[in-house]
């Protein structure tokens, strides 16, 4: 039955592939995604496997592609992603791909190296340009600082040395002042100055000026700020010292000519060279851009191809090589329904590879536990994930997921019940569902987004059901809708109203219009002050009602499991006592609730069925189990209906009798069945021994064997008893505690309603009480605040909380009645899954 109700039937198959055809066949199977291969070489090291070289080549190719991708991303070129998946190329095409990637990588590296060299050159020239400009300033200042008589008025030219004529006049000794000019990072200037001062004992003179524009560092491509400096010193010792210090501080020194005319010539030369370099740099960048743009068109395709090749070789490594070295053997789990499809895929693969020998798919009988495979579509996969998160179903047991599709959103809605909040949730879910294709294509990497987007159908259904329960609870953002007209009305006259601050409407009067509000809660309750008293009684009862029905449904599913696995003993010894226990106690309580709703009324003529005598269901139930007689006031009946006392005693006794049946019946029957088998095997063994003619020796062997078997079986028996004991206790105690656990439906619904009311009364109402246009503006601001709190607290936080509680109700209260969950999931070899994983993981 290829459906969601039970996991699929799986077959263990052996696959014989010819070596030439193996690659193409595995490629076809990868596209199909229906086969889970087993590792036939588990104790072989990864480096000793057959196809390790090919995997290594694929890794190399992937590395080159990643380098290309990084460069493309650095330049900001968009990578074309058509969303289609090319097929894995043939092995011979792998060499072509490798060559292409090698060429691209080498070209790119060369271009990058050239660009770096050029940039370095450019940087040097730029720094030199700045130096020449700044030192001009230094020398100009020096000129103006000279005493006027020193200046030769005729020679208005630039042939002025720094110290003027003074330097030349001082006693024949020419004061030869040397200088060095260079560029240093701006941050290092203070330390540099200090070092110079200390090392040269203050005998050097430093002038510096900042370079306004930041320069680009060729290796890191960062923008750095630098300054020009010029150091004057005298003598060779100081010169060497200064040069060493400059080296230490990584300042680059440039040869700067003394004479201004030389400097101007140099400056012009530098400008032309800079312009040339700019053009060359521009052309290099263009070339690089062209190469990258051409690569960007194909790079996603290449990535997919390389990943597919790698996946195929990894899978081929799992295979066993036949003795004749011509054929590969594989073992795989395959869904039985898909055997035909797989055969077709294999045939396609062999045709593509041009091999003549067809592959053989051989079904094997095995006692191993097959994996659990549930075929889901985009709608059901969310719910299946919810179930699998607790435990993957055992092979071929009933799958709770199809029922979860409705019960989960419904139980959530019982706790969330608000038309307004439900509408918000439904709109959000609806938006995600309607726009699912474009949103999925965006491939947003956030974890939170993945969770919300993956559960979009769940959110949509939760929203819709919440709208329904919101209508029934008559709660829209903590206000009620009055669609049909309330069935309660005021029957007090004016004087009574004026005299009393609050009054209670009597249901046994004209205040109540005899028939209830047709759909949902009467809107009068929202404005009533004793609303919670009424709602408590109502919501607690519906929580228990739905809880008991949910659990009974779980027990019925266990019956379906027993029938499927032909486990008649379990039906008799487990299912029947379980259902009797649950029905006689808890379904009876539910029926009492319905009886109370129908039987007791405020306007009954008899006080015995009036509000005064209406019994508490809880007390009745407790008294029933404790065999106590209920103490009612004298005017009232002791029981709700005739024969209730006797009936209750009977129900409890039968239910209690079910407990030892659950505890002992099945293990005793198993024990008896085993004892019946044992003497048979003993007799069988001794008979064969006598037939074989060997007397004592083999007999002893057989006796030893059966003796070792017997304690083994005894252990099994104790284990069976213990297991059954645990199971019984879990069920019996669980049925009480789980029934009470369903009261969380009431608790959360109450909390949600109260929070909603608080938010309205404390926040939004303040905006509605101010008059005039001022009130309009105030309302606008307060509404924003109220809306933000509603969405964040009531929809998100309460939604998450109710989601969690519903999940717990399903996992523990519902599934413990029938679910084993001991299986393991089916993990087929599928390119889609591998590519998805590869594209999401490295992005972090």
């Amino acid at each position, binding site marked *: 039955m290829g459906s969601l109700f039970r996991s699929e039937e799986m077959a263990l198959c052996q696959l014989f592939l010819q070596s030439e055809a193996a690659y193409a066949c595995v490629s076809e199977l990868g596209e199909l995604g229906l086969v889970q291969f087993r590792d036939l070489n588990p104790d072989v090291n990864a480096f000793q496997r057959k196809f390790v070289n090919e995997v290594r080549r694929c890794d190399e190719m992937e590395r080159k592609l990643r380098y290309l991708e990084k460069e493309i991303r650095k330049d900001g070129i968009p990578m074309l992603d058509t969303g289609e998946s090319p097929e894995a190329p043939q092995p011979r095409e792998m060499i072509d791909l490798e060559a292409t990637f090698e060429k691209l990588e080498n070209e790119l590296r060369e271009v990058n190296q050239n660009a770096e060299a050029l940039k370095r050159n450019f940087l040097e020239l730029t720094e030199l340009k700045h130096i020449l400009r700044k030192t001009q300033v230094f020398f100009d200042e020096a000129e103006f600082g000279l005493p006027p008589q020193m200046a030769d008025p005729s020679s208005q030219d630039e042939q002025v040395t720094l110290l003027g004529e003074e330097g030349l006049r001082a006693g024949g000794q020419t004061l030869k002042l040397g200088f060095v000019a260079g560029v240093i990072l701006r941050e290092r200037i203070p330390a540099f100055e200090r070092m110079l001062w200390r090392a040269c004992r203050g005998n050097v003179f430093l002038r510096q000026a900042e370079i306004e524009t930041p320069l680009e560092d060729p290796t890191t491509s960062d923008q750095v700020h630098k300054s020009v400096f010029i150091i004057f010193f005298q003598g060779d010792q100081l010169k060497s010292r200064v040069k060493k210090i400059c080296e230490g501080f990584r300042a680059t020194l440039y040869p700067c000519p003394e004479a201004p005319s030389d400097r101007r010539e140099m400056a012009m030369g530098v400008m032309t060279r800079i312009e040339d370099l700019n053009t060359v740099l521009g052309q290099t960048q263009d070339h690089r851009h062209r190469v990258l743009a051409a690569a960007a068109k194909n790079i996603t395709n290449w990535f997919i191809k390389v990943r597919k090749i790698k996946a195929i070789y990894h899978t081929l490594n799992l295979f066993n090589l036949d003795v004749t070295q011509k054929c590969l053997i594989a073992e795989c789990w395959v869904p039985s329904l898909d055997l035909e499809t797989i055969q077709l895929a294999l045939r396609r693969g062999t045709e593509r590879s041009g091999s003549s020998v067809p592959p053989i798919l051989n079904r094997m009988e095995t006692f191993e536990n097959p994996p659990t495979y549930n075929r889901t579509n985009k709608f059901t996969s969310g719910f299946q994930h919810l179930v699998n998160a607790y435990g993957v179903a055992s092979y071929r047991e009933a799958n709770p997921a199809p029922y979860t599709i*409705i019960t989960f959103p419904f139980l959530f809605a019982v706790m969330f019940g608000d038309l307004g909040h439900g509408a918000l949730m439904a709109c959000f879910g609806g938006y995600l569902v309607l726009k699912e294709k474009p949103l999925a294509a965006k491939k947003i990497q956030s974890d939170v987004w993945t969770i919300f987007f993956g559960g979009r159908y769940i959110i949509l259904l939760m929203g819709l059901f919440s709208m329904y329960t919101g209508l029934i609870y008559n709660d829209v953002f903590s206000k009620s809708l009055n669609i049909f007209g309330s069935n309660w009305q005021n029957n007090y006259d004016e004087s009574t109203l004026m005299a009393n601050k609050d*009054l209670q409407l009597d249901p046994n009067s004209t205040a109540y219009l005899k028939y209830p509000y047709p759909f949902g809660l009467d809107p009068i309750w929202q404005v009533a002050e*004793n609303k919670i008293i009424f709602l408590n009684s109502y919501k607690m009862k*519906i929580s228990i009602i739905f809880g008991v029905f949910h659990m009974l449904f779980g027990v019925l599913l266990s019956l379906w499991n027993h029938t499927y696995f032909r486990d008649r003993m379990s039906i008799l010894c487990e299912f029947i006592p379980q259902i009797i226990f649950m029905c006689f106690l808890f379904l009876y309580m539910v029926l009492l609730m319905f009886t109370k709703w129908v039987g007791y009324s*405020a306007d009954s003529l008899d006080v015995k069925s009036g509000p005064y005598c209406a019994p508490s269901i809880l007390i009745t139930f407790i008294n029933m189990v404790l065999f106590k007689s209920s103490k009612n006031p004298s005017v009232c009946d002791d029981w709700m209906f005739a024969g209730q006392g006797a009936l209750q005693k009977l129900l409890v006794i039968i239910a209690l009798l079910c407990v030892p049946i659950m505890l002992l019946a099945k293990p005793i029957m198993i024990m008896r069945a085993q004892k019946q088998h044992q003497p048979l095997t003993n007799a069988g063994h001794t008979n064969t021994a006598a037939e074989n003619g060997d007397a004592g020796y083999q007999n002893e062997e057989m006796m030893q064997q059966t003796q070792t078997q017997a304690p083994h079986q005894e252990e099994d028996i104790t284990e069976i008893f213990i297991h059954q004991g645990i199971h019984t206790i879990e069920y019996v105690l669980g049925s009480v505690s789980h029934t009470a656990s369903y009261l969380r439906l009431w608790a959360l619904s109450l909390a949600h309603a109260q929070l909603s009311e608080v938010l309205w009364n404390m926040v939004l109402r303040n905006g509605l009480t101010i008059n005039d246009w001022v009130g309009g503006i105030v309302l606008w601001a307060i509404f924003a605040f109220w809306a933000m709190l509603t969405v964040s607290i009531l929809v998100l936080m309460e939604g998450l909380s109710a989601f969690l509680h519903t999940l717990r109700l399903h996992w523990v209260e519902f599934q413990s009645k029938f679910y084993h969950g001991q299986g393991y999931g089916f993990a087929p070899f599928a390119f889609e899954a591998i590519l998805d994983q590869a594209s999401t993981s490295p992005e972090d």
Partner: protein
Amino acid sequence: MGASIFPIFFFTVVWGGVGIFLPRMVPNGPNQRLMQVVLMITGAVCWLFWLCCYMAQMNPLIGPRLSNRTLLLIAQQWGNPLERF
């Protein structure tokens, strides 16, 4: 019993239609059984929820307690004007 026959009949027919009648009209396909189960559970559960709410209000044992302001308001707005003393 303070129940009015029309709402009971109406909602039972509606949810009965969803849970019993619609599943027969689900087209054949791989998801036919699933759709049927979904519709049946929806019908049953929604009908039961409505029924519980209806039955809880059928024979009320207590009435709402309202402030005199609210009583005056509902008398005026809900078409049951007050008798002057």
